[in-house]
């Protein structure tokens, strides 16, 4: 993750130094996801990116790191802490405000849809925020698609294991073949208007209780 902290001279050269002076703070507890976001931002020409795992020390971090933009997952419960910090009226503290561009609702809607929220520190100009957000939105959208695919794959695997256990229980209890056990599960599910996985889960739970 350290790679993201130092300016990358070649990128700065290619994209112009103005871009790379935007300091970005990412609040993200998952290190893999954090690395991915840093990569996307670095590729886009912003190399001054810092990641923290939780917002609990955020006010201190904001004072020390002096970021211009804070990016956080919409689903991260730490958002409420950020919200609090954005309201603190300590004149010594840096002003933090949620980024909502009322002249460009499509952008705000795209961020929400991608699961991203952004906070701007000390009112950085809109034209410098937008490209950062566009890059982050694209990456968040990709990450959330990958995450839902991963979740679906995990669920399918866990369903498969449960159905296999249920088949095994039926094969032993009734002395039938694997195919017959699956047919029985399916028939029962259809008869009750339930899913095969629900019938299998009920059977496995019951067997565990009776053991």
């Amino acid at each position: 993750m350290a790679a993201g902290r130092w300016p990358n001279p070649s990128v700065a050269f290619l994209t112009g130094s103005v871009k790379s002076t935007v300091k970005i703070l990412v609040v993200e507890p998952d290190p893999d996801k954090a690395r991915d976001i840093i990569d996307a931002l670095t590729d886009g020409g912003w190399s001054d990116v810092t990641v923290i795992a939780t917002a609990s020390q955020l006010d201190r971090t904001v004072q020390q790191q002096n970021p211009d933009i804070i990016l956080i997952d919409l689903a991260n419960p730490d958002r409420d802490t950020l919200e609090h910090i954005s309201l603190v009226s300590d004149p010594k503290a840096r002003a933090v405000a949620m980024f909502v561009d009322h002249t460009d609702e499509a952008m705000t809607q795209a961020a929400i849809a991608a699961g991203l929220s952004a906070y701007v520190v000390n009112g950085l100009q809109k034209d410098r925020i937008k490209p950062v957000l566009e890059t982050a939105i694209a990456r968040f959208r990709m990450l959330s698609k990958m995450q839902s695919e991963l979740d679906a794959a995990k669920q399918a695997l866990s369903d498969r294991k449960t159905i296999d256990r249920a088949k095994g229980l039926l094969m032993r209890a009734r002395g039938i073949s694997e195919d017959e056990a699956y047919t029985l599960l399916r028939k029962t599910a259809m008869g009750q208007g339930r899913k095969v996985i629900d019938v299998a889960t009920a059977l496995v739970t019951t067997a565990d209780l009776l053991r």
Partner: protein
Amino acid sequence: MTLTHIECGYLPLVDSAPLIIAQELRFAAEEGLDLSLIRQPSWSALRDMLALGHIDFAHMLSPLPIAMSLGLGGMPAQIDALMVLSVNGTVIGVSADLDAKMRATGWVNSFDDPKIVGQAIFAATSNRVRIGVPFPFSMHRMLLDYWLARDPNFDADRVEIITVPPPQMAAAVKAGALDMFCVGEPWGTVAVQQSDAVLVLPSRAIWQFAPEKVLGARRGWVEENPGTCHAMIRAVYKAATWLENPTNTPLAAEILARTQHLDLPDHAIDPALSGLVVTKKGDAPLQTDRFLVFHEGAANFPWRSQAGWIAHQLAKWHGLDAAQASQTAHACFRPDIYRAALAPLGVDMPGASQKCEGALHHPTAVASTRGKMILGPDTFFDGAEFDSAQEN
């Protein structure tokens, strides 16, 4: 009959029960609504989803619609409170360490006396007391502020208010990051079980009838969908009535635990519904009357004077013009829509839409459409009265 599909955001707290019951016991379907409950990870996320039109209704902290309508916070929007979903229901607790220091001053926990608790806190420590609340715009924070600011030893520098998401409250206490907290159930009970925290007050000891959650919706959407709003109010009203009946409490706890909406075990849900609260690990539970109220005493009525009280606190904190803030707040709470929605049910309604908050020391019969309404008690711990009409 085709049902109208509506989406309502909520946070997994026991006081979201009226919405869950409205869906699970089909009160919503009876009103022609296909109610979909969308769980939200934080109050900020819920607020954004409502403001940007991704959800139609929301389970909201009572100050939130008013703060948004006043332009405070990250996502300003005109949001109306169509009804009150619950009254009271939050607890104030201290860390095991602060509890020990308070006891060393001679304090005994009776779980009902804000003045004594306040004295014990400031006598126990000269350090700044770090207090966790779930959100800056919450009744939690308003009650804490109202209470502590009236202690003779209070000084703004002696407390620090920190926002901590409720599910993280117990861990923050355990990690020594908080000395004190105010949180909605089940998270107070969880802090007692997991972090040896000690509950020192139910929030109702500060204000006996504090509107805690409201049903929020965008004003523009409300104007375009009056029939859907009326149906939703009726469905939630019926659910709240059902919840208030003590014979339904065990079944309510089971439904709330069973349906995945809260993702909490029964024993975490029971205390809020029964009012039997364990204040310290290993102690017998204490019975707290009106701990969490869903219906009794016209709890669902969105009193304009409640909005006025909230606006008064917000104006003070954020340096707003008090009269203007009060006017905006009064317009957010919608007794007019509530009355219209419940007219077909012949529900008893109060004669007025605002009252003098804090004036009722006992349950008191008041003027109402059917002449059977009993309100109160609604006093503040310091005996003050808040007359919204005079504030303007």
